[in-house]
């Protein structure tokens, strides 16, 4: 079923896009990530212009995080105060990201930078997750309980001035720390079309030392608002949001996310983390190959 995308200016097979959204939604429901890190590269591989891909993938992440946020609210799993600080940082960050996007686009280096950032981020986080999940699986096999790491924030966070009490997170830290964290994920959201959950969640646990009960809900809360904001930033600056493409992705992904969330209940968390780590590493490796291999197209054309 061919459908013309009015902003991307090309015709795609609608079923392929819905299926792509469904697959990503399934994974995002299973692993609790937005899935933007998969959507954007896959759309580019399918032939969608990179700018349109990044701009439209953000709205898919918004859709995927909505039901999660509601579910966590019902469980009282969202620290709204912490979330609001993260969102504020994310909004400033996405404006900075839009500026960086325009700057790199003018230099002709946007694609390379996107690929390098993907490789570095996905490579390092995938590696860490792989290590951690293998340790956890080994510990489970040996029948030993995992040594619960002491919950504490990073010394750098403690060094920041001005302290607030975040009751739901059980923290007394400077709001600058989540603000900066939010800022970086905001930059990434605009640049890569990702929600940033795969950075936010580990950073909240290991850098801020937040209680795990509110980590996922609060990160989804930030992702919901920042991806919505990033969609607005793209709509007004790059004008590359294709609402038809977004609708197709959403149709697949919201359904996939619900099914994925149910599948996740049957699996063991450390095995899920291992699977996610491997998947993240595969994407990173594919991107690395793309950088190092001689590309099919040496030339590229940009409209002025």
């Amino acid at each position: 079923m061919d459908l013309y995308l009015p902003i991307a200016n090309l015709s795609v097979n609608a079923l392929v896009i819905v299926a792509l959204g469904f697959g990503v939604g399934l994974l995002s429901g299973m692993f609790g990530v937005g899935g933007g890190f998969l959507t954007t590269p896959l759309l580019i591989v399918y032939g969608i212009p990179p700018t349109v891909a990044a701009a439209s993938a953000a709205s898919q992440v918004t859709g995927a995080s909505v039901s999660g946020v509601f579910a966590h609210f019902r469980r009282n799993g969202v620290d709204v105060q912490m979330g609001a600080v993260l969102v504020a940082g994310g909004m400033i960050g996405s404006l900075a990201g839009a500026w960086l996007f325009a700057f790199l686009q003018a230099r002709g280096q946007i694609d390379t930078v996107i690929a390098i950032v993907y490789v570095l981020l996905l490579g390092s986080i995938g590696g860490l997750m792989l290590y951690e999940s293998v340790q956890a699986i080994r510990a489970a096999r040996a029948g030993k309980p995992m040594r619960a790491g002491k919950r504490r924030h990073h010394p750098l966070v403690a060094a920041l001035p001005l302290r607030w009490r975040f009751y739901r997170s059980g923290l007394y830290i400077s709001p600058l720390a989540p603000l900066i964290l939010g800022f970086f994920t905001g930059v990434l959201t605009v640049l890569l079309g990702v929600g940033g959950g795969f950075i936010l969640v580990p950073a909240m646990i290991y850098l801020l030392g937040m209680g795990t009960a509110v980590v996922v809900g609060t990160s989804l809360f930030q992702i919901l608002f920042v991806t919505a904001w990033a969609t607005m930033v793209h709509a007004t600056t790059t004008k590359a949001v294709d609402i038809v493409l977004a609708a197709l992705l959403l149709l697949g992904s919201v359904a996939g996310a619900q099914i994925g969330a149910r599948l996740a209940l049957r699996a063991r968390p450390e095995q899920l983390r291992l699977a996610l780590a491997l998947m993240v590493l595969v994407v990173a490796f594919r991107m690395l190959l793309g950088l190092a291999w001689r590309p099919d197209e040496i030339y590229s054309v940009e409209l002025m």
Partner: protein
Amino acid sequence: MSRAAALLLAIAAPALLGQAEPAKPVLVPDVSQRDIEIVYSFTGADLLLFGAIVYPGGQAPEPGDKPADVVVVLKGPVQSVLVREKEKVAGIWVNADRMRYRSAPSFYAIASSRPIGELVDARTRAIYELGLDSLQLSPASGAAPAIQARFDSGLVDLRRRNGLYYESPGAVEITGRVLYRARLGIPARVPVGRYTAETFLIRDGRVLAAAVRPIEIRKSGFERFVANAAEHYSVPYGLAAVALSVLLGWAAGALWRRA
């Protein structure tokens, strides 16, 4: 029906008027579609370019005479483009050198009754922009000819592989030496705007007659509404996109919880 009648009239007109001067032949071209509307199901268009060659005196040339050839060129609106060339720097492929072109056609298709190289020489090809190696790309920067040529062929090659530029020699069919027809395909990923269908009548390496017909390609209906909204009402458009994603996400959650 009326088009056919007009065609007949055009063929017959010189004869009826009893034209005294043995002028050059005239082309009466037409296209199957003057307006191409892009709607949701648009996957490209197939355009039929056809017409008649009107000889002076209304007389088709004798079978013994040398036959004339027909070339049709379908051209999209010109664009100002920046072509970048990738180079391997420190192990990775990055954009390095670049070249600016003021007027590269966004789409270019040429069909002819015989390969264009056999019809006219390079100079004539350059004048009428006949063939992919004869496009007037008007580079904006004065670079060395070798570099220029490298970028020219890079641009043409890229667009050819995207289906935006192509040559189809032998695609023009001439019937009874007076009627010609050619079918040219337009892919879905062409930009909107004013296209031109040029027809050339060529004999003995000379262009005897030329005629141009405009073709308008535009987005229509919902596609036009969306493109227009994204361009001119970007804030409501962005809000609509956000509202859509929130609504769909929420609806899926609500539906599944009930189920």
